[in-house]
């Protein structure tokens, strides 16, 4: 047995170590970790361009992808990531700035050719494009990939545009009906031609086939249904080394059968790409700043602590970007609970835009919104202020608000409920700022916070709940499925978009003028003409005070000095993951 002295020494050592760990102090070495970049260098151009090959690119995320099956993903960062191993008929252009919102051919030779009044869309495939096993990709693989999205029970995470748009009534998907000839929505007259048959004209079909991974080819004999996402077959520059482990991660390695001459939108620079899932967001920030992780996959920016550190240390700031991301954080005013337009306008007049802007972090947190569509939408008008001012010093106009209240027959104001996500301090601060401003004109807000996990499905996004709880205003934000006025505005203003859960038309807008414009616009072939209609819808939303504009979100992104070819992609609202490299 050891002597008591040894035991005493050991315990004293443990106590000392324990005390050391809990000591609250430390050095300030953040300044030593900087690179030689320039603040916002990656916001509008390619930062640190390089063709250096090799190295391991490390990516991390706090949660996990919905799936790695390209057809079973909806969120932008997952769609961005799967481009590394899946190619689709069309895809976003890999360019910085507004050019990144354009849909360009990927597996297709050219953009889709519409006929039959926009009801038929034909795509010709590039020849010689191969899967990771060397088999050539054929039109039937695209048809199968689209067909499987019809089984909403098995692949329920992805978008449902194909089952809504294609002329394939009653088709249940190849898992229930193995006869692919029964699927009439897509025809393949030869191995290199894919023809989509639509129920109604839809002029933005290139966007539908390009924004998600649902036209990524799937070899029918390799399909594992809902488990295909564990190891999808690659058609892109990288392939999975082994099965992806949900909540843990996986590794991508080079796909030797990818031909760069057929793919101008992706690069194959690192030897490997490692993904680690389940890492705390704050820990990811620490590793980004240390350069041991290069990419924070969700791409929504660093947490509060790192934000403060970066903004106060020039060398860290030099390796950060603060672009306007895809979200507009706005406040929908519910038309069922506040049906009178003048009552809604009174809210807009009285809103303290200055305080709401500061709630989102001021200059670093966002840009004051003028239109509903954010700046990244091609053809969007900047818009003019209606009943409010996009001015950092505008604190509301109580006189006009009271006049509007008098017009709506409630000169002494009214009461309603405002919801916000309780775990989002910016939304809470916004709600409190609005409450204070509306109080001055007699509009009483009862603030109710809910967890973000249930907010969209069960509270603000559930019309039954909104009616029951008399919710008049909420905090919300929207990022479009694809970057056009349709992608942004249709889900939040078309009556047909109102759904019982996960509803994005939170104002429950049912405006005959807007509804008609939505019905007509999908048959207009010219994008510029469509953009005009979208701007009219945008103006109508503001004129009728369906939505109180707030701020276009800006995110603070870190690009470690050893990350190359970094640029903010307007289409995805984060860095483009398909072209990154790593040095050192």
């Amino acid at each position: 047995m050891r002597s008591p002295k040894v035991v005493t020494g050991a315990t004293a050592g443990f106590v000392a170590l324990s005390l050391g760990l809990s000591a609250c102090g430390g050095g300030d070495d953040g300044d030593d970790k900087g690179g030689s970049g320039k603040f916002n260098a990656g916001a509008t151009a390619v930062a640190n361009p390089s063709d250096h090959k090799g190295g391991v690119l490390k990516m991390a995320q706090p949660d996990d992808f919905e799936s790695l099956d390209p057809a079973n993903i909806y969120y932008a960062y997952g769609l961005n990531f799967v481009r590394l191993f899946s190619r689709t008929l069309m895809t976003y252009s890999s360019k910085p700035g507004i050019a990144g919102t354009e849909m360009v051919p990927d597996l297709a030779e050219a953009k889709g050719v519409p006929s039959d009044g926009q009801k038929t869309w034909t795509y010709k495939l590039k020849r010689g494009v191969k899967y990771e096993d060397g088999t050539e990709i054929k039109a039937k693989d695209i048809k199968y990939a689209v067909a499987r999205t019809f089984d909403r029970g098995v692949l329920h995470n992805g978008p449902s545009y194909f089952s809504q748009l294609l002329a394939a009534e009653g088709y249940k998907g190849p898992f229930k009906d193995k006869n692919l000839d029964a699927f009439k929505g897509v025809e393949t007259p030869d191995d290199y031609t894919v023809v989509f048959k639509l129920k109604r004209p839809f002029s933005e079909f290139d966007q539908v086939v390009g924004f998600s991974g649902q036209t990524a080819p799937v070899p029918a004999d390799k399909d594992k249904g809902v488990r295909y996402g564990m190891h999808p077959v690659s058609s892109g520059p990288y392939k999975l080394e082994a099965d992806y482990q949900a909540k843990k991660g996986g590794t991508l390695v080079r796909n030797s059968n990818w031909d760069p001459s057929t793919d101008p939108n992706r690069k194959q620079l690192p030897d490997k790409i490692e993904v680690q899932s389940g890492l705390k967001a704050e820990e990811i920030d620490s590793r980004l700043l240390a350069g041991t992780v290069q990419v924070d996959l969700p791409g929504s920016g660093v947490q509060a602590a790192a934000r403060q550190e970066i903004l106060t240390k020039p060398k860290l700031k030099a390796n950060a970007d603060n672009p306007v991301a895809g979200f507009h954080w706005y406040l929908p005013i519910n038309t069922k609970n506040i049906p009178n337009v003048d009552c809604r306008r009174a809210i807009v007049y009285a809103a303290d835009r200055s305080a709401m802007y500061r709630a989102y972090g001021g200059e670093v947190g966002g840009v004051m919104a003028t239109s509903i569509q954010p700046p990244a939408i091609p053809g969007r008008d900047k818009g003019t202020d209606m009943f409010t001012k996009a001015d950092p010093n505008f604190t509301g106009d109580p006189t006009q608000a009271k006049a509007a209240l008098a017009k709506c027959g409630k000169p002494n104001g009214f009461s309603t409920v405002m919801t916000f996500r309780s775990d989002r301090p910016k939304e809470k601060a916004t709600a409190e700022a609005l409450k204070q401003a509306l109080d001055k004109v007699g509009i009483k807000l009862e603030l109710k916070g809910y967890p973000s996990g249930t907010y969209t499905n069960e509270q603000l996004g559930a019309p039954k709940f909104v009616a029951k709880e008399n919710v008049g205003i909420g905090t919300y934000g929207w990022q479009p499925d694809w970057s056009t006025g349709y992608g942004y505005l249709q889900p939040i203003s078309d009556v047909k978009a109102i759904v019982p859960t996960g509803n994005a038309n939170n104002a429950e807008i049912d405006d005959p003028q807007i509804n008609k414009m939505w019905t007509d616009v999908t048959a207009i072939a010219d994008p510029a003409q469509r953009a005009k209609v979208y701007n009219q819808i945008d103006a109508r939303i503001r004129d009728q005070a369906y939505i109180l504009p707030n701020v276009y979100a800006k995110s603070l992104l870190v690009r470690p000095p050893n990350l190359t070819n970094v640029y903010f992609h307007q289409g995805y609202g984060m860095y483009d993951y398909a072209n990154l490299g790593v040095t050192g």
Partner: protein
Amino acid sequence: MVAFIVRRLLGAVGLLLIISAVTFAIFFLVPKAAGVTSDDLAGRFAGRQPDAATLAAIKDRFGLDDPVPVQYGKYIKSIVAGDTYDTGTEKIDCPAPCLGYSFRTNQSVLDQILDRAPVTLMITLGAAVLWILAGVSIGVISALKRGTIFDRAAMSVALAGVSLPVFFTGLLSLAFVVHSWNLLPEVNYRGLGDNPFNLLLPWICLAFLYAALYARLTRAGMLETMNEDFIRTARAKGLPERTVVVKHGLRASLTPIMTVFGLDLGLLLGGAIITEKTFSIPGLGQLALDGIFQSDLPVVLGATMTAALFIVLANLVVDILYGVVDPRVRHS
């Protein structure tokens, strides 16, 4: 002894049944009482703006419209008799005890638990060794040196230890020991194939919390025991002080420590939730937490029952060990 073990194991089965029923009720009945519909539940598993067809298909796949007793009956049946799982392209056999398939990852819950359990085991065992060694040693020395500076300092640290949760010490240690001072590498432990000493920091943080409690428990027990008549008798017989302290004093003080140790070990084996979350380690605790946040009922049920099983088993082992440590228990 065999009858005792069988009786306890049968009791454990009953307990697990109750726990599974309560978890089911919390998952389905409590939200229902708050107005959550099956559409809302289905919406949690769908993408943005799910259409009616998508919601109906999800409800059908997960059986969300079945009455809760029917869903519970199916769950229990799959544990006893196994089940099959439809991936769309094939039907996978899930032999008994089938704990179902995750709504999110579509993987067998049992496989996930078996994958995560060794990680939690490594965290728990490493920390347990540290806290037992440190806690009991400090407690014994403090009792023997009652009233001295060491005693006061150690008990003050112990008080701090009990008061400082792992998410506090863990975050601080990550910030300073790993990221600022680079004394230890980043914690990247993912499974048994990795170097277990990568868990040193989680071990120390967890042990710091528990060692403090054990030090106080041991000190109190030793102070009481060392005043007993049999200690005086041992000393009167001329036994060396080390033998008196360790063989007679400490041994008699161990029974309450073992009781607490059994509970603590069982709780942590079921998922060292805060430690795993703080250090981003994929153990059972993270699995349970992800299941809760993502409304993944099969995972929540599996993780809850595994945690309960560990507590029951740990207590059973402790009960058996009572007889080994304390002859009075064996004789009774």
